[in-house]
């Protein structure tokens, strides 16, 4: 028997809220020799669709889950095994797996599903922590987003680090009443968050506005930040899609919200009805409109960005990565050009503003 060499491919868990996923299509046929990171199949969750990339190398012997099947996380999708393993052994492995597979309990209570709350900087902030490596990473989402923007990022990074994802004030399930909407204040709030959860020094990974917040935190609190990764970041140039920012603040219907969210990605099919509903539900919470308006005023004047931190990059004594999608329709990828030589710049071809969701595997490789 060689079952040790039989490896299951199972339904991944992308983000804290994912409980099941739908197989859209297999991108490779049975009999394909997979390398680590090869695109294997497309999976759709309530929130967003994504490509599942091989976590193990090996020969794809069997496709178990068929297109359109909806399966809980951990369910068997396919089987990898070397050619010398017999079909009978593969069959036996599948039978055993299915017999022993227990779908995870659906989380009932707020506390049980991994979200936590902490008082910091005068706010109640929601966050989640994955992994417990010595290396600390804090993920900072962008304008109008929340910690779910890191659904495909947090768990992969957590293999070798303690990875925190928080909702900035005015966002997600954190306090909506802002004391100050400036990037400087948000940066101070991230440092206060680190104090509150007991992190002395962390790598900050910021997306969009969160990139500017991360950079500002490194400038204002140099001892607290050990590295920066700025993804489609604000604060590196003047241009910004102000129509998106202003439209997002004003939108109160599906019809208004959908075309806006479609600008965030290169492939508009990724914008699901659930994503649109989530955004509308967020926007309809008391205080969100005022918070978003205050934050928008803190970094743009209605047509351009007003916070430019590019000049600080030279003086920073920490490694800096800059990642962009070439088709970013919110903040142009041209802001990745002309940065100091020590900044490691990658522009991923064909992806939009939410590049960490749209090209999760590529971005994660760059972040690891």
């Amino acid at each position, binding site marked *: 028997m060689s079952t040790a060499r039989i490896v299951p491919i199972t339904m991944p868990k992308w983000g804290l809220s994912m409980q099941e996923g739908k197989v859209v299509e297999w991108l490779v046929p049975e009999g394909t020799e997979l390398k680590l990171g090869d695109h294997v199949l497309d999976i759709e969750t309530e929130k967003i669709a994504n490509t599942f990339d091989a976590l193990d190398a090996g020969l794809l012997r069997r496709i178990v889950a068929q297109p359109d099947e909806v399966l809980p996380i951990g369910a068997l999708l396919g089987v990898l095994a070397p050619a010398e393993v017999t079909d009978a052994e593969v069959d036996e492995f599948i039978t055993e797996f299915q017999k022993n597979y227990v779908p995870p309990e659906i989380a*009932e*209570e707020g506390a049980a599903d991994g979200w936590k709350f902490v008082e910091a900087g005068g706010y109640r902030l929601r966050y989640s922590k994955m992994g417990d490596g010595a290396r600390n990473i804090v993920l900072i989402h962008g304008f109008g987003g929340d910690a779910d923007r890191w659904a495909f990022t947090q768990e992969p990074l957590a293999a070798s680090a303690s990875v925190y994802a928080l909702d900035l004030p005015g966002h997600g399930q954190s306090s909506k009443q802002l004391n100050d909407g400036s990037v400087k204040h948000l940066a101070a709030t991230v440092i206060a968050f680190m104090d509150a959860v007991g992190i002395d020094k962390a790598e900050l990974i910021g997306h969009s506005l969160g990139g500017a917040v991360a950079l500002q935190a490194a400038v204002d609190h140099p001892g607290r930040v050990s590295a920066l990764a700025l993804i489609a970041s604000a604060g590196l140039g003047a241009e910004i899609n102000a129509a998106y920012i202003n439209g997002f603040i004003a939108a*109160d*219907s599906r019809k208004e919200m959908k075309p806006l969210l479609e600008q965030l990605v290169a492939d508009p099919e990724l914008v699901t009805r659930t994503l649109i509903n989530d955004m509308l*539900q967020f926007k309809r919470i*008391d205080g969100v409109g005022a918070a978003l308006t205050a934050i928008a005023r803190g970094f743009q004047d209605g047509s351009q960005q007003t916070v430019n931190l590019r000049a600080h990059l030279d003086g920073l004594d920490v490694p800096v990565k800059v990642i962009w999608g070439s088709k970013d329709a919110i903040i142009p990828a041209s802001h990745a050009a002309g940065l100091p030589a020590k900044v490691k710049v990658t522009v991923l071809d064909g992806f939009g503003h939410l590049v960490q969701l749209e090209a999760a595997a590529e971005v994660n490789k760059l972040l690891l």
Partner: protein
Amino acid sequence: MARKITYQQAINEALDQEMARDENVVVMGEDVVGGSGSDGEMDAWGGVLGVTKGLYKKYGDRILDTPISESGFVGAAVGAAASGLRPVCELMFIDFMGVCFDQIFNQAAKFRYMFGGKAETPVVIRTMYGAGFRAAAQHSQCLYPLFTHIPGLKVVLPSSPYDVKGLLIQAIRDNDPVIFCEHKVLYTLEGEVPEESYTIPFGEANVVREGDDVTIVAFGRMVQQANKAAAALAKEGVSCEVIDPRTTSPLDEDTILESVENTGRLVVVDEAHPRCGMAADISALVAKKAFSSLKAPVEMVTAPHTPVPFNGKLEDLYVPSVERIAAAVRATAGYAA
């Protein structure tokens, strides 16, 4: 995710948060001060199902017990609304509305119009409706089509804990009279509800489930039934889109029409009687505005044109069942011209 509470707790939380936010919000109705589960004597006072439990201790005289005189206290609520308060008036069962039609139809619904836009009537009338409680013919009806018929009234039928909180807050902040219809069988339904205050705009349907073969439009408690039917039908290879209009007035016509333009098949599920009800109304809308998209006759699944029976077995047969909804979907999906 967010914390889970019941439909009933979500109503209580909406009332609590709006009373804290705006001192003009008052709650009035029969036994609303007490509430089942209150301390000592207060518990005996009832409050039918205890929806307003705990509010009296927090807000004192802003929670008003009224005599058993619906025509009197509904009139008082309408007048108070016209003169500056935001009353949330609880009329225990929708079946009792008959004695205050003048206050609702001729006064509340007409003030803005009759006074040339100079008067506003921000009153919410909360009321329980629907069968399933063994409460017989005078305490089990679905009379919301009557109110939907009257221009000047907004009519709300929340189907989930999330929706009931957001829609009730919206209703309280709305400057027009709102008939807020709560299905009593839904009171124990649990769901995720944010702790913060939030609103849901009127006239925006919720697409509860997406699908391509058949559109099911369902109201109130029937949304759950339709969802169960859709889940069962998915296993047979029939993909249903389930739409909950959430408000019958205003009505989100676009969402319904866009869905039928995609599926070409429509089933309307309503617990009310079939004549002059929401099922007939939606069918007419689609027949007029999406006729060329229809591939099959519209199916209506409703209660029969009879009073709600007291006999439990008959009452269960009276309410549209998951099986009847599924059968209607199969009929329209299998129709060949």
